Each structure stands twice: as structure tokens, then as C-alpha cells.
């Protein structure tokens, strides 16, 4: 009997470790601040082993002081370092919103000084209730001076964090907690994913779903289910929300005229609203009917699993939305 030995590909969290390690090896001014990073390796094992490899100067366990963590990273970035502040959950950024939005985002404009700072956290809905499941991306994307990565694969995690660590802008790096354990190929040390470049993760002929983060997974499931019904759907993963790949959005609108925009954030005032509004301003005549948005209900996330699931888009809801744009 022979068994085929297949190399295990890295997880989404390990992809982050890999990118950070490579960049830390070439730039000693990169260091990480956060809670429970040294022994625990972060709540999602995202920096596991890095403190042991690089030492306690390069990975600093901080008190649970979000405002001071971001201020520490920002001041050090202004001084010439390239810190990563790891908040574990983006929900915790709300205790440091002044430091992020009023300070870090505005320094370059007012003082002509770059702030090379990465703020990493998990985002999106999993179990954990109202204080661990927020999708706050529209807050950050709305703020001039901030860039925003929302990778959905190990390949993109590594490629995007490496790009962030070679640039001089403040980046909010959001990793979806439900993707932490997924595995996939990652690039080598010279593989970078630029911000503002979407990726088609499934080709299609009839309609497009534009999405990002974990919703790329649910969109793909919906697209596969729809294939059986004879509807061929393209799935576009934005990968970053600012800069956003407007060219890819325009191209999808022009090519299909039938577009669904999907994420897990409450619909009102969301990224999906931004995408739909801009698309209709730019290419209204290409649309065969209204863009349909799919997102969460306007409610805090419940701790109850069924209630939490009910708040966010299901595969079935996404399929219905596609059928709606196909009905035009």
C-alpha cells in the first residue's frame, strides 16, 4: 500500500506569520505591540513563535490599553519605526478611535510626515456576541488617510501584509476570524499583492458578485449552487477596500450589467452602499437593473448562534439576490 505524502499548506494565520517574519528579517524597525502575543501568539496564533524567534524587543506584550497601544505605534511610526499594533479584535479599536482617526490618519496631510503603522485585527461575524463580531470597515474606509486590507486567502494575507510593511501609510489589516484555520498556498518572499487590485476568484458569464473577506466564501458557495440551475456567476474578491479597485468594479458592471454586492456589515451606510452608488453614477446605462446589495440586518450581533446566523447573509439569500438581478 502506498500513501501519497502531501505537504500541508499553511493556514491563514500562518500566512500572516510568514509575511511578518520575512519582513522583520529584513527591517529591524518593524516590531509588534499587542496583548497576549508572546506566549499565546495572539488570540488566533497569528504571531505564534515570533517573539521566541525575534526576542521581546520585537514583540511586546502590552497592557490592555488600546489607546496607548495605538499611540505607541503611531508615535514610533512618526519617529521612523514600522510598528504593527495587534488589537486581536477590531471591536477593541473603538477604545482608540481618536488615535486612529483623528491622529494617525491625519498626520501626513497636516504635517507632511508618513505614519508607517499597521493595525491588525480580526473582523467579521463568528460566535462571540455583540462585542467581538463587529464589521467596522466602513468607519475606516470613510476616513481619509487610512487604507484597508480585507484578505480572504492565505496567499492574499501574506502578499498584502508584505506590501503594507514595505509602504509608509497607516493600514488597517482586517483578517476574518472564521478564516483563521483555512489552508492554502502562499507566495515566496518576493510575492506581493498590491492594494487596490481585486481578484476574480470564480469566472462567470451571466452576473457578478462583488465581495470581500469571509463573504467571498459564501459567495462562491452560492455561485456553485447556481451553476446547477444554469446561472453562471462571477465572484470578485476586492481584497482591499481602500484603495478600492474601481476599474474592476466598472468592468464587471459594464460586462454583466447584473451585479450583486455582498458583505457582512449592516447595509445602512456600508461599503456595499458606496460600491452600488458609485457604480450607478459611473455606468448607469450599462446596468440592466438596480444593483442588489446583500448585508447584515441593522442590529447588534446576538450571542445566540441561530440569531447570529440570521443577521448575516446566507447562501440562499445570496442566490436569491443573483436571481433578482437575472430577472431584469
Amino acid at each position, binding site marked *: 500500500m502506498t500513501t501519497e505524502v502531501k505537504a500541508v499548506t499553511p493556514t491563514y494565520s500562518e500566512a500572516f506569520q510568514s509575511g511578518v517574519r520575512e519582513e522583520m528579517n529584513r527591517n529591524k524597525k518593524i516590531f509588534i505591540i499587542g496583548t497576549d502575543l508572546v506566549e499565546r501568539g495572539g488570540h488566533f496564533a497569528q504571531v505564534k513563535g515570533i517573539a521566541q524567534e525575534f526576542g521581546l524587543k520585537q514583540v511586546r506584550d502590552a497592557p490592555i490599553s488600546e489607546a496607548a497601544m495605538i499611540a505607541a505605534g503611531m508615535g514610533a511610526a512618526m519617529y521612523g*519605526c514600522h510598528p504593527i499594533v495587534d488589537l486581536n479584535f477590531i471591536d477593541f479599536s473603538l477604545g482608540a478611535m481618536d488615535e486612529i482617526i*483623528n491622529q494617525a490618519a491625519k498626520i501626513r496631510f*497636516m504635517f507632511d510626515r508618513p505614519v508607517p503603522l499597521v493595525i491588525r485585527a480580526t473582523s467579521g461575524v463568528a460566535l462571540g456576541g455583540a462585542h467581538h463580531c463587529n464589521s467596522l470597515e466602513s468607519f475606516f474606509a470613510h476616513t481619509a*488617510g487610512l487604507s484597508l486590507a480585507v484578505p480572504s486567502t492565505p496567499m492574499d494575507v501574506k502578499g498584502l501584509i508584505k506590501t503594507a510593511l514595505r509602504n509608509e501609510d497607516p493600514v488597517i489589516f482586517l483578517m476574518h476570524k472564521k478564516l483563521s484555520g483555512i489552508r492554502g498556498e502562499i507566495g515566496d518572499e518576493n510575492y506581493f499583492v498590491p492594494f487596490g487590485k481585486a481578484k476574480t476568484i470564480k469566472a462567470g458569464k451571466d452576473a457578478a458578485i462583488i465581495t470581500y473577506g469571509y463573504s467571498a466564501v459564501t459567495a462562491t458557495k452560492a455561485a456553485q449552487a447556481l451553476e446547477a440551475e444554469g446561472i453562471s456567476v462571477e465572484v470578485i474578491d476586492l481584497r482591499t477596500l481602500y484603495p478600492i479597485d474601481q476599474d474592476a468594479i466598472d468592468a464587471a458592471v459594464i460586462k454583466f450589467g447584473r451585479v450583486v454586492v455582498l458583505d457582512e456589515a449592516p447595509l445602512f451606510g456600508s461599503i456595499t452602499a458606496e460600491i452600488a452608488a458609485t457604480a450607478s453614477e459611473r455606468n448607469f446605462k450599462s446596468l440592466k437593473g438596480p444593483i442588489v446589495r446583500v448585508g447584515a440586518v441593522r442590529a447588534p450581533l446576538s450571542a445566540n448562534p441561530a440569531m447570529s446566523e440570521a443577521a448575516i447573509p446566507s447562501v440562499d439569500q445570496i442566490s436569491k439576490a443573483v436571481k433578482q438581478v437575472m430577472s431584469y
Partner: protein
Amino acid sequence: MSKLDKSTALALLRQMMVIRDFEETADKLCLRGKVPGGMHNSSGQEAVAVGTLSAIAKDDVIATTHRSHHHTLAKGYSAKSVMAELFTKSTGISHGRGGSMHLAEVTEGHFGGNGIVGAGVGIAMGAALGIQHIGDKKIAVGFVGDGGMNTGRTWESINMASIWKLPLIILVDNNQYAVETFVGRVTGGGDLAKRASGFGLPAYNIDGQDVLEVRKYVSEARERALAGEGPTFINALTYRYYGHNVGEKGQYRTQEEIAQWRTTQDPIDKFTEVVISSGFATQAEVEELRASVRKEIEEAVAFAESSPEPEIASITQGVDSGKLGVQL
């Protein structure tokens, strides 16, 4: 700190005179509508700024508050570049993008005034972390007012500086009124140095009207920081002669109280006596000094008046690097 010599004494006196004349001149110009958005006059607080900035090195870092003209002038920036910034002209220290509250020259260690109470301590703490990480022989000073002594972020940052032994001085420019609220009315425990010492760092309440006392404490704190012994907290008691903002007619303190401070505790009068009694200058020479300051401020006003406005077309420039989207 070495014994006071003539040239140092005259430099300290002149710098305080520059600040006073600058502020009283700018105040009047502000009432005439020349300072968009208004300004915060620091008259009365000169010794805190001059005592501190004269005791640190030129390339040490400061980050400060909404009331920061005096810190900026004392760091060595010309009255011209500060006045032009108050006028929001392109020749201003922040090229007209910052205004009165956002004076900065980050490349030279001025990490900015701030519109948010307490934020400067965090930024200075981060700079101190950068200094420590890179291993430079420098320190950072975070200025904060009495108002910022009751802001959570300030104490988060003081704690972080204490546990990481960062080369930081927390300098409370304590003018006793948070807008119109007397510090004693809103400060639990009352004694700020005592409060700070609970965080495990040396903490002092000092006379902020005595430039030499401020200079001495800051100089000692700097030595301690450079020796790797960590941060120091200095609460310098001072008084502002004017309202929180220009044109304010408050009922929260008596005219007698203001007159009492002006006539018995004025930092410039007090130090002028030292200068004359030490034989460093005659009264006539002090008047000559004052006249030279007057000329300097008049020139600053003329410069600000005649300077060009910033290019409006540059409004979206410098928000970010624009390079995150470039393939590496």
C-alpha cells in the same frame, strides 16, 4: 545643570518676551479675524515652555496640546513661521494645513500640537518607544494641560511609559483651568504628582512661574531618561492671563485672581529681577531687549500678512503616499 551664565539668562528672558509679545499681538489680530478658527493664548505660561525647551536638546521630541504657540516658539521656531501658520498661510510651519492648534515639524522632533486633550502624551510616548527601539540618545516630552490630567488616554500612556522605562517626560502645563473648569473642582485626590507616582515613576509638583526651577527639573528628568531609568512626571503650576480662547469673557474666575497672578507671579517679571540682580543686564538693557523683540514680532506679522495662501488645488495631495497600489 551648570550655573546660570549671562548669555543663557538673556536668551531665556528674550525667549519668554518673544512668546508674550507674540501671543498678545496674535490675540489682537485674532479679534480682527486674521486667525481662522481662533487661537489659545498662552500668556502667563512662558516659563513652563522656556524652562522645558531650554533644558532639552534641539532634536529631542515634543508633542503638545491645543495651547502650544509657546512650546513651538521655545523649541526654536521663528515667530514668522508660527504667525504665518496662525494665519493659515503656505509659509507657515505646517504650510497652512494645521493652523494654531497643529504646529509641527516632525523631521526636527516637533510632533505637533493637538486638538484633542491628552493626545500629545500618547504621541510623545510612542516617539519615546521609537527612540528606545532604535537606540538613539534622545528623549521625548509630552505636554499636557490640567484638563488632560482627567483623560483616560493620558494615564494609559503614562503607565506604558513606566512599565517599558521609556525616555519620556510628562510635562503638565497646569494653568489650572480646563476651559472654565477649575482643576481643583474635578481632580479626585487633588495632588497630581501623587496620582502619577502611583504609576511607579518619579513625580513632582513644581513652580511653573520660575523658569529656572522648570529648567532644573526637566534637565534632571532628561538625564534620568537618557540613563535608561524611565519617565518622569512634572506638574508645573502656572496661570493663563487670557481666556481659554480669544475673545472669551468668562465669569468663572475673578479679575482680582488674574491681577494677583499678574502682579506677583509673572514669570517674565520674576526672571527680569534675577537677570538684573545677577548683574547680567541693566533695566535699560532689558528695555532694549524688549524693543528688539517688538521688532521681531512686527516683522512676523508683516511676513504672515504678505505670505501667499496655500494652493487650494493641493487639497487632496499628501493624504497618503499613493504607493500601496503599486506592484512591488
